[in-house]
């Protein structure tokens, strides 16, 4: 017995040292950047720009993270293929709708109608892919050991990536941005890229709608009930399979919206575009507290900001060359740190061992 306690102490000490090193590095980097002027010098406008771009990037993570968090909340499974739902909507709507609207001039003449049309197609595609994946790869395995659905999810992820690669090709496909959304708007005397404003606005609207849907509608209630306890929900007359499908569909719809917004910001889509955002959105979901919808939103925004501000702030402060290349390292390190030290996330409830 005493041997075992020794083990725990040893590992615990190691983890504490690890945490301390990271904190010291971040503080040292920040201090030497801000007060000692290591690395490039930025004006206050540039800092605000970093921050706003982080917020807009974070809204995208938040939208994608919702899908992870809702599915995890209900099935306790990481839907590894969620990034692919996002990609499928973005690619299909770009290739089959946006390109034609842009070529015919309709996109610039009627930007609002066009964007709604593109978003609708994106949402429909994402939902179809999600429902198909759920039906084939997840539903038959509901009672299997927990690693099994994760493996099929990994399989589904690669299947969809290369399916859409075959369908639309492996080239980068440009996403046409309407003229009225190019350039900047001046708000409160500060200039913002119009696409970023649109992204943040849409995200807020989508989040509010989702929150109301979950809290106020009967279907939302059913989702919450199934998340609480599947068997009891079934006894209360809730169709569990249908509710799970609806949950997947809602998550996929959010991913579909995120897909179009991603196209607006980055102006191109690609068959591999879902992978890294998918993992980062998962990070955001865990960061906020997986299973919680406000948590996903908060986690997404925070991750976006840290990723945008981190490299110029503390990485450059540490004298690291090419700090912007290490953006992904920050995100993944955060993932690792959160999972080690606070697996329940910022505002998540502490899950029982069985669930976490």
């Amino acid at each position: 017995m005493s041997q075992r306690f020794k083990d725990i102490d040893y590992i615990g000490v190691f983890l504490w040292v690890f945490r301390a090193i990271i904190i010291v590095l971040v503080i040292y980097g920040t201090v030497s950047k801000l007060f000692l002027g290591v690395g490039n010098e930025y004006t206050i406008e540039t800092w605000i720009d970093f921050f706003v771009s982080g917020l807009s990037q974070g809204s995208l993570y938040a939208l994608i993270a919702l899908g992870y968090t809702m599915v995890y909340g209900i099935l306790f499974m990481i839907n590894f293929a969620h990034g692919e739902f996002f990609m499928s909507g973005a690619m299909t709507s770009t290739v089959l709708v946006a390109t034609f609207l842009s070529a015919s001039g309709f996109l610039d003449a009627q930007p609002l109608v066009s964007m709604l049309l593109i978003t609708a197609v994106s949402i429909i595609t994402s939902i179809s892919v999600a429902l198909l994946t759920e039906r084939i790869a997840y539903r038959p395995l509901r009672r299997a050991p927990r690693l099994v659905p994760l493996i099929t999810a990994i399989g589904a992820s690669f299947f969809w990536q290369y399916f859409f690669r075959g369908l639309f090709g492996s080239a980068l496909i440009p996403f046409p941005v309407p003229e009225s959304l190019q350039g900047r708007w001046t708000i409160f005397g500060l200039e913002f890229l119009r696409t970023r404003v649109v992204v943040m606005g849409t995200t807020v609207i989508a989040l509010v709608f989702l929150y109301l849907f979950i809290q106020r509608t009967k279907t939302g209630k059913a989702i919450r009930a199934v998340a609480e306890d599947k068997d009891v929900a079934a006894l209360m007359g809730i169709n569990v399979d249908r509710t799970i499908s609806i949950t997947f569909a809602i998550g996929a719809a959010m991913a579909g919206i995120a897909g179009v917004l991603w196209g607006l910001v980055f102006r191109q889509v690609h068959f591999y575009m879902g992978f890294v955002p998918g993992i980062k959105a998962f990070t955001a979901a865990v960061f906020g507290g997986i299973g919680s919808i406000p948590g996903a939103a908060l986690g997404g925004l925070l991750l976006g900001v840290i990723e945008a501000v981190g490299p110029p702030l503390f990485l450059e402060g540490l004298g690291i060359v090419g700090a912007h290349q290490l953006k992904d390292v920050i995100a993944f390190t955060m993932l690792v740190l959160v999972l080690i030290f606070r697996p329940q996330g910022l505002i998540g409830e502490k899950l029982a061992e069985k669930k976490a």
Partner: protein
Amino acid sequence: MAQSTNFSKAVRYGLIAGVVALSVSAIGMVETFDVRDIITGVLTLGQLLLFSTALIGGYFSWKKGEGVTPVGALLRGLVAGLLTAVPLVFLIILTVLWPDIRDSFVNVTPALINILTFDQGTVTGSLILLVVMGVLGVIGAAFDLLSERIQKPLLYGLLWMLGIGLLSEILLLILRPYSPRALLALLFGDKGITPATAVVIFVLAVAINAWWTARGKEAAERRRIARPPSTAKQLRRLNIGLLIAFILILPFIMGTYLTEVADVVGTFVLMGLGLNIVVGFAGLLDLGYVAFFAIGAYVMGLLTTQGDLGIGGISFWAALPFSVIAATLAGIILGVPVLRMRGDYLAIVTLGFGEIIRVLVVSDLLKPYIGGAQGILQIGKPQILDFVFVQPEHFYYLILAGCLLAAFVSWRFRDARLGRRWMALREDEDVAEAMGIRLVSTKLMAFATGAAFSGLAGAIFASRLSSIFPHSFNLLISINVLSLIIVGGLGSLPGVVVGALVLVGLPELLREFAEYRLLLYGALLIVTMLLRPEGLWPSPVRRRELHESQMEHISEDETEEVHSLA
């Protein structure tokens, strides 16, 4: 009423088959696979793929025991077959109405339409397609009318014929040095086997299988039982001896190109054996496994290269232990933070580690030390006295030695106390801990051993290619290795070899698979998990476990159904 439900099944499976046929056509698989002839001038792999959809759709269009008459069954097959063709006909019409379809769907090419219409133009071609798919649907439906005694040999014959046809290019490569030209010309066409050969193989395989089920199997079984244990043991030793001898002389039979493929397969076997310990034995799903492969390769590269980045400039053999030790240490260091995670969180964190290492390797930060995207060149080759390993054949034996070592270590560990601890951990962490198993050392041992094998594979890989680049160490390697051990059979040593041969060897040989490799891996992972979770060559324990639990699931489902009915 019952009749209409029955037809609805035919319609459903016909439409599913149709969507599958449309998908494989639209993503370009049919066209890409069309370059490989299976039977010269008769059947290409692309056509096989296309036609099998209608066949399978027809097969599932009805089920025995639903009171369907034979004619009704054939009719249902016809419906399913025709419905399979309908989406394809739509595609053909669409290409006429929308000539620029390639701008959106890059793989809907004129060549594809020519395959679908049998080069006969839109209208005639569509009709032929409908007829052919309808007939195939009928054949598929008719297959289930036959008794099992006939079904099995037929299937067996078909598989042998198609298999040999598919691998004809490789067989030709092997046979060419030994066989007279005239004989080969008779057996093989330009590509694929000749129709006559196909018929001969089919008939032979059917006859052998029919004889085996009727007589041979029983006789062999009787002989096996009659054999005294000592002879049986000797026989088994002899078999193993023959197998080893065969593996040893393989490079002389296969020639340089095939040996190179074997080297790639061997590298993956080595990695698979390592990951098999982590995932298969200890049940820790590790998606960042490529990191240890990369560490082994980079340590080997840095220590032995004659280029600017080199440190030490020591020989392959001197550097090899450093590679393995570095990978092992990395396995432990990355293992400590994740000790308290389980299941899916562990998978994501290890994935994160893999990505961190990949990003770091290509970044400017480490470029001065490890070369960034330019990689490391001029890596040293192994040398024994004056003999330098250069040819793929030389590396074949090196990799083989590595694999044998890894297999031996895995095998001994599996049945030792450590292996039991791993398996207890896999089954239930809490119970294992309650039984007095120290989780920390057990988990770290698994990570360390797995990483050591991967590091060894990486070191040999670096030396074999003499140059390494960061993009060779991406996540897809981890996914490849994971797929092959799952498809082969988690926790099974022969399963790793089978998995590597099927998932790495075949795509290397059939190059047209390259583009669709990961698509097929993804589909295979799902199908394996749904239909055969124990893999192709399961370990006996695992098979028993899974089938036992399946039994439980079935009974559980049934009770649930009863409840929902009530």
